[in-house]
């Protein structure tokens, strides 16, 4: 009996072997916790040529025990900026850090009012995140503002049916900052004729910077069950603020037959973000799982338009009520049909 009890006591002690690193809730503890979280989980150190250990030394020298919370936040935010990643944020009760240069260093190339006023005379339809209408050239136009909001199958059926007699479709994903990848699948399945490779997803297999899984291929099946599919030409319009799930949508559409990408290189954001937190209670989000396109190429730095279709908006055109990129897309479609 004593031996049995001794065994159970021993087992109870052994159970504490699965310990976790603990961080103190002070300036140093929070800084170390943040650095460790990124060190173990962030997925683009190599692509971005970031020496994370050097970053630690650089910013550890800037912290001291007498710092206020805001001062600590500023140092930690600056450290995260070294990753040059729009998916990486530090969230405190008073602010969320955000790396903006992935879009702020580029022309915006989009003005919603320009299209609403001069192309539709404010006579367009809105449904969820979709704004749509038929252009005078008999071309269907959809602006999809965020993949965070999806549409039901019946709603998409209705929109595509509305464009039934249109000669082509323009899908404008400028300023679409992403959202839910399942909404990407819901839209792409309207444009594929057969089971189609959409890309590959990778995850980290351990805390090392090079610990990655083999790419896992994922596919899209064409919509069935009597739902509408689109088989006419499609032009997808992009700008630098086309990001994350929208960037993923463009990377998939670009490789489909009959689809042309027009505009500017997208903003990237191909790492699916992961969440964690610091002892102080601040949340941290960062890229953790890279997604590759169907050719196995990374899209973290954006998806380029179809060759010959790189277009920026001309401010003079805009003053005259013209969206240079949309005009290019319309002319491209009209030209296709004239040929």
């Amino acid at each position, binding site marked *: 009996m004593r031996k049995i009890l001794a065994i159970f006591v021993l087992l109870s002690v052994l159970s504490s072997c699965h310990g976790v690193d603990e961080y103190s809730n002070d300036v140093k503890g929070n800084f170390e916790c943040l650095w460790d979280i990124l060190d173990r989980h962030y997925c683009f150190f190599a692509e971005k040529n970031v020496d994370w250990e050097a970053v630690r030394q650089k910013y550890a020298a800037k912290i001291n025990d007498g710092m206020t919370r805001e001062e600590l936040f500023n140092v930690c935010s600056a450290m995260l900026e070294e990753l040059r990643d729009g998916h990486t944020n530090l969230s405190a009760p008073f602010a969320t850090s955000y790396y903006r240069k992935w879009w702020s260093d580029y022309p915006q190339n989009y003005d919603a009012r320009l299209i609403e006023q001069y192309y539709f005379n404010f006579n367009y339809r809105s449904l969820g995140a979709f704004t749509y209408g038929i252009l005078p050239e008999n071309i269907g136009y959809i602006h999809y503002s965020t993949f965070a909001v999806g549409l039901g199958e019946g709603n998409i059926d209705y929109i595509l049916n509305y464009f039934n007699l249109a000669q082509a479709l323009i899908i404008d994903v400028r300023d679409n900052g992403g959202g839910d990848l399942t909404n990407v699948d819901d839209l792409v399945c309207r444009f594929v004729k057969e089971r189609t490779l959409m890309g590959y997803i990778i995850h980290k297999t*351990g805390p090392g910077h090079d610990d990655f899984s083999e790419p*896992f291929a994922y596919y899209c099946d064409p919509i069935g069950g009597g739902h509408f599919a689109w088989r006419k030409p499609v032009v997808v319009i992009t700008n630098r603020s086309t990001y994350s799930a929208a960037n993923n949508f463009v990377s998939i559409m670009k490789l489909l037959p009959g689809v042309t990408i027009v505009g500017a290189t997208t903003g990237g954001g191909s790492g*699916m973000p992961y969440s964690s937190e610091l002892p102080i209670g601040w949340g941290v989000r960062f890229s953790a799982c890279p997604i590759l396109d169907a050719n196995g190429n990374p899209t973290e730095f954006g998806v380029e338009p179809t060759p010959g279709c790189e277009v920026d908006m001309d401010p003079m055109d805009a003053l005259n009520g013209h969206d240079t990129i949309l005009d290019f897309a319309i002319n491209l479609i009209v030209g296709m049909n004239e040929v």
Partner: protein
Amino acid sequence: MMRRALSIIMAMAMCLGAGAADGSASGSSEVVRPVMSAYMLRMGSSHLTDTYLTPLKYSGWSMGFGYERMQAMKFDPVRWVMQMRAGIDVDRTHNPSGNAVMWYWGADFSWSMMRRWRMTEGLTVGGGGMASADLGCIYAPRNGNNPASAKASVTVGVTGYAAWTGKVGLVSMTLRYQPSIPVLGAFFAPDYGELYYEIYLGNYSGLAHCAWWKNYFNMKNLLTADIHFGATSLRLGYLGNILSTKVNDVTSNLFTHSFIIGVSGEWLSINRRHGLSNDARIISAIY
């Protein structure tokens, strides 16, 4: 229709001493095996850590409901007893700074078969094997793409108990201590940084892991006091649960300490037509 029911369920007093097993069940006397059933509410503290979700330790409360059933086994009712246990739990915990919540929802089921020995008058010990299935989920609403950590396992293990029945003052009671621990099995865990979205896309490889003490440690310590009041008993007790896993560099700890309050009793199913013969031997489930 009710009259045609073959059995009626009647509460029996614990028949202290009356059903004491003092030897083999062989012979011509009828053997009756009452079922010990218990319904328990559990309330206590919970400590959660799951490095898939957060590096921080969360603490809070735990609540649960448990059911237990024990009965002497038909093939050798004096020496062998079976036990079935099932429960559901919900835990709500906070991070150290108190600005984030983490939940745990879980369900467990186990069936065990134990050999028992009567050590002295009133004291019985038992030990044997156990098969368990556990299902649960830790949910961290503040997280975006990694908000949950699913728990699922099937295991075989060992369990044992020591039960003493007697009187403390004028109150008759049964005290019992029962630890149980899985030894081998399989459990679910995604890879180090694998999102459940990837599993949703169809990547099922590497999700099942062989469970053994180094990577999967789950121990339940149950202490109960059944205070007998005629047909039924008031159960007071303690349940300590330790679930600690470490696989793919992800550590998950769930520690709960719960106070138990419930009702228990030994129940007999008696044929209404034939009744209970005068020489029937009642063999208790616990002692």
